[in-house]
């Protein structure tokens, strides 16, 4: 078990509850649109690309590439904030974990990993280099 920094718990709402329920099971859901065919981030009922409400939850590959990142050094526990471009298309804000922060780079391939937050609260999707 990796040693993660303490992360704040997410606050699910009725629209996003299925995502966080799946996260507890280790499943990474994404939201896709049946009208425009695109996957978006973060998940919404009404597609932010085309405005259709014909959207659905899908299981994501959990694979992606680092689009940009920063190592935050002025924090009690340094961390890597990043946007990861999912293989399905959209870019999501996340943390890069389980690695030497000095070797993180743009273009690196990464894989989702769920990091615990508070007891009773769902974990959050982070990424580690593959």
């Amino acid at each position: 078990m990796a040693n993660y920094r303490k992360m704040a718990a997410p606050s699910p709402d009725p629209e996003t509850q299925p995502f966080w329920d799946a996260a507890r099971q280790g499943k990474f859901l994404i939201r896709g649109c049946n009208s425009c065919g695109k996957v978006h981030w973060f998940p919404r009922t009404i597609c932010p690309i085309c405005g259709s409400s014909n959207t659905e939850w899908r299981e994501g590959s959990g694979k992606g590439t680092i689009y940009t990142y920063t190592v935050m050094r002025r924090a009690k526990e340094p961390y890597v904030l990043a946007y990861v471009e999912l293989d399905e298309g959209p870019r999501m804000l996340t943390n890069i974990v389980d690695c030497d922060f000095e070797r993180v780079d743009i273009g690196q391939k990464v894989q989702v990993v769920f990091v615990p937050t508070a007891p009773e609260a769902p974990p959050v999707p982070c990424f580690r280099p593959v």
Partner: protein
Amino acid sequence: MTIKGKAYLVGAFEHPTRFAPDKPTAQLHAEVAMGAIEDAGLSKDDVDGLFVSGDAPGGLQSMGNYLSLKNLRHVDATDIGGVSPIVQVAHAAEAIALGKCNVAVVTLAGRPRADDIHTGTVPRIRHVAAPDVQWEFPYSITAATGYALVAKRHMYQYGTTSEQLAWIKVAASHHAQHNPNAMLRDVVTVEDVVNSPMISDPLHRLDCCVITDGGGAVVIARPEIARSLKRPLVKLIGAGETTKHQEGGYMDLTYSGAARTGPRAFQEAGVQPSDIKYASIYDSFTITVLVQIEDLGFCEKGKGGAFVSDGNLISGVGKLPFNTDGGGLCNNHPTNRGGITKIIEAVRQLRGEAHPAVQVKNCDLALAHGTGGNLGARHGSGTIILERE
């Protein structure tokens, strides 16, 4: 329909304080409002339009009440972060053009320094029900980390360097040495910036703006009133505003909303970026300036690093004198919102009232542009173009 020539900036006032443990935020708002009204040569009862933003405690009701503005007939509390006063100048001009008010005051004030708020490095929740919070707060996005994401991507995509970013701070410090009220008055070098402690790669401590208490205000009036006053005539001739988003995850982080507001403002004003004699460019971080300068069209996209280097932003030295008060990087970033000070220094330049060491010769055309929120997530943008008549 245009706001071109429909309104004038007749009053401007920047609070001299940078640390105000002895004053509540409401008092700071009142002091800057009265300062700008007096600067215009008007009185409180002349004010019939009030513009405040998220920094005003209690909003319009509390501020209108505290100031006791008895003739108010137009109010606006637009809040798109630190840029808000810039877009509110344009909103005031719209209201004046439509006859909704004659004399509008825009105030901004606060005291994060006295309240020991570590604005740039600690994650904040602006609204618990904002839809983005659950997808961002756990990851600890802050002002510094968000802008660092943009800087890192800009470097990757365009080859921008830390030394080039540092030149922006160097230019600001050259100007701040002449401002007795500036928080940081020491001239710094590129080496000083890149050798300062790393905050969030690639942004160093000296790539970040100051955290200050204080504020400022401006007064906007209809042309007949402006001409009856004894101040130089500073006319609003163009404006643009927008919010830039994450586009469902398909955003390009190297662009800002300035790519939309700049062209609109220039089109309305009927001028080109190369016509601008002085520019106030929002400088929460060095990267903020670089991205906006490109997006406003002062140079080609991706060439901002070369453009800002070698003193090109220093008044009397370079082609684009910017933030001659020292900007948010050195002078003042009151209540973590740099919009009002951008307008105020542009007005000083157009009046010929900037410090003689930084005053741009024959400064008859100026731009003020700002960003509110986070370039690394979503943000508001506003551009105004001002002309001395």
